[in-house]
C-alpha cells in the first residue's frame, strides 16, 4: 500500500501558505458555533460555516462541486437570491404598511447608511464597485447584497456575505444603543394610535403590481429583485394560490437557503478570505447599520417638528430591512420605557417598507455605479 498517497493531504497542509486553511476551519467552526449555540441566522451561518471547512481542505474535491453551484446559482443571473425573494415575498404581509403608507418614508430614510458607507469605503481606497458592494451590507438583506455584489463583480463577495448575515443576526445588539443615543426618554415614551383600518383585497393585489411597475420604470436594474419579491407577494395575496404560497414560503425558501449558504462558502477560500480587507469590510458593515438606524430615527424626529400627531422616533429605526428583528427590537424598547406602549404594528409597517426600500436602494446603487464604471 502506498502510504505517501494517503498522506499527501496532510503533507500539503503544512506546506507554504496552507496553514491559512486551518484558520478557515476555525472560522467555519465559529460560524457553526454562532449558528447553533447563539442561534444567529442559523439557516445561513451553519451552511456557510460547514462550507468554509469543506472548501478549505487540501485538494478539496468538494470545491469544484460548490464552484459549480456558485456558477449556476449566483453567477448565472443571480438565480438563488432571486428565487429566494419569491419565498420572502410570499412571507410578507404588507397590510400594516398599506393602512399607513406614509411609513414608507422611514424605509427610504433608513437606506442612508448604504450610501454613506459607499462614501466611507471609497475614502479608504476601495474601488467604486467594491465600495458599492460593501455599502449594500447596509440593505440588511442577504439576497439584495448577493445580487448587487455579484452584478458588480466584487472581489470581496464572501466577506460581504458573512458581514451582511452576521449583522442581520446582530440587529438586537447593534440597534438599541444607537436608538437610545439619538432619542430622549420622553420621545421613546410617545404613544402612537393604531387605527387598524381594513385594507381591501384589491389594494393588496394591486400593490405588488404597482410597485413592480414603478420601480421597474425608475430603477430598471432593481426590477428583477423587486419583481420576484412582489411576485411572491402576489401569490400570497391573490387568494387562489394558497398551496403555491405555502410552498414558496416554506419549501422553496428553505431549499434555496440550504444551497445559498453552502454556495457562498465557495468564496471563503483561505487566500480570498484571510485579508485585512475582510476586517475592514466587517467594520464598514457596522457603519452601514449604525447610519441606517440613525437616519431612520432622525427622519421621524424631523417629521415630529411639523406633525400634530407625534411619531415615536424609534419606529424610524425599523426602516432597515432585517425583518422582523428590527420591528421587534423597537417594540421591545417601547415596552421598556412604558409597558403600555405597543409599537409593534407601526414598526412592522416600517420594517416591511424597509424591505421594499432596500431593494430600490440596491437597484439605484447598481444603476448609478454601473453608469460610472
Amino acid at each position, binding site marked *: 500500500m502506498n502510504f505517501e498517497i494517503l498522506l499527501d493531504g496532510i503533507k500539503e497542509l503544512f506546506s507554504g501558505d496552507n496553514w491559512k486553511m486551518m484558520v478557515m476551519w476555525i472560522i467555519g467552526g465559529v460560524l457553526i458555533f454562532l449558528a447553533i449555540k447563539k442561534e444567529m441566522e442559523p439557516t445561513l451561518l451553519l451552511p456557510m460555516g460547514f462550507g468554509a471547512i469543506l472548501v478549505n481542505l487540501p485538494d478539496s474535491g468538494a470545491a469544484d462541486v460548490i464552484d459549480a453551484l456558485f456558477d449556476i446559482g449566483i453567477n448565472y443571473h443571480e438565480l438563488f437570491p432571486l428565487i429566494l425573494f419569491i419565498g420572502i415575498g410570499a412571507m410578507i404581509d404588507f397590510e400594516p404598511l398599506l393602512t399607513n403608507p406614509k411609513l414608507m418614508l422611514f424605509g427610504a430614510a433608513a437606506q442612508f447608511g448604504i450610501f454613506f458607507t459607499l462614501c466611507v469605503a471609497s475614502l479608504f481606497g476601495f474601488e467604486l464597485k467594491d465600495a458599492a458592494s460593501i455599502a449594500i451590507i447596509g440593505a440588511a438583506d442577504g439576497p439584495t447584497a448577493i445580487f448587487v455584489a455579484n452584478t458588480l463583480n466584487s472581489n470581496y463577495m464572501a466577506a460581504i456575505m458573512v458581514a451582511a448575515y452576521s449583522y442581520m443576526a446582530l440587529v438586537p445588539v447593534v440597534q438599541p444603543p444607537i436608538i437610545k443615543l439619538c432619542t430622549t426618554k420622553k420621545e421613546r415614551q410617545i404613544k402612537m394610535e393604531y387605527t387598524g383600518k381594513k385594507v381591501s383585497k384589491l389594494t393588496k393585489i394591486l400593490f405588488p403590481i404597482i410597485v413592480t411597475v414603478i420601480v421597474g420604470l*425608475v430603477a430598471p436594474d432593481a426590477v428583477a429583485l423587486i419583481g420576484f419579491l412582489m411576485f411572491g407577494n402576489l401569490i400570497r395575496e391573490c387568494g387562489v394560490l394558497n398551496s403555491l404560497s405555502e410552498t414558496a414560503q416554506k419549501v422553496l425558501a428553505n431549499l434555496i437557503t440550504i444551497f445559498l449558504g453552502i454556495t457562498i462558502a465557495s468564496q471563503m477560500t483561505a487566500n480570498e478570505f484571510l485579508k485585512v480587507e475582510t476586517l475592514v469590510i466587517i467594520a464598514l458593515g457596522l457603519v452601514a447599520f449604525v447610519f441606517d438606524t440613525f437616519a431612520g430615527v432622525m427622519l421621524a424626529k424631523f417629521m415630529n417638528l411639523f406633525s400634530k400627531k407625534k411619531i415615536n422616533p424609534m419606529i424610524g429605526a425599523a426602516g432597515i430591512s432585517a425583518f422582523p428583528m428590527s420591528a421587534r427590537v423597537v417594540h421591545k424598547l417601547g415596552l421598556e420605557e412604558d409597558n403600555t406602549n405597543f409599537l409593534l404594528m407601526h414598526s412592522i409597517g416600517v420594517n416591511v417598507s424597509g424591505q421594499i426600500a432596500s431593494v430600490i436602494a440596491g437597484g439605484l446603487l447598481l444603476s448609478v455605479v454601473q453608469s460610472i464604471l
Partner: protein
Amino acid sequence: MKKKILLVLSLVLALVSVFSLVAYASEPQCTHVDANDDNTCDLCGEIIQAKQMEFKFDPGSLGQTVPILCTGMLGIFIVTTIIIAIVILLNTILEIVDKKRKNKE
C-alpha cells in the same frame, strides 16, 4: 425654532450639494476599465497597476461618491413618494366606491 432648524438644514444641504458638484466637476478622472486584464485602461490607454487593494485616505473620492449619495437618496424618496401617493389614491377611490355601494344597498 422650526424655521431656524429648517434654515440650518437647508444651508447644510446646499453646502454639501455645491461642494460635491464642484469636486465632481473639477476632477474628471478616468475610471479605468480593463476588461481584457492586460493592465492597460481600455478607455484612456493608460497603463494601470494590477488590481491590488491599497488602503489610503482618498478625500478626492468624495467628488464621485457624494453625488451618488445625493442621487441615490433622492431617487429612493422619489420612488417611495410615488408609491405612497398611488396607495393613498387607491385607498381613497376604493373607500368611495365601497361607500357608494353600501348606500345603494
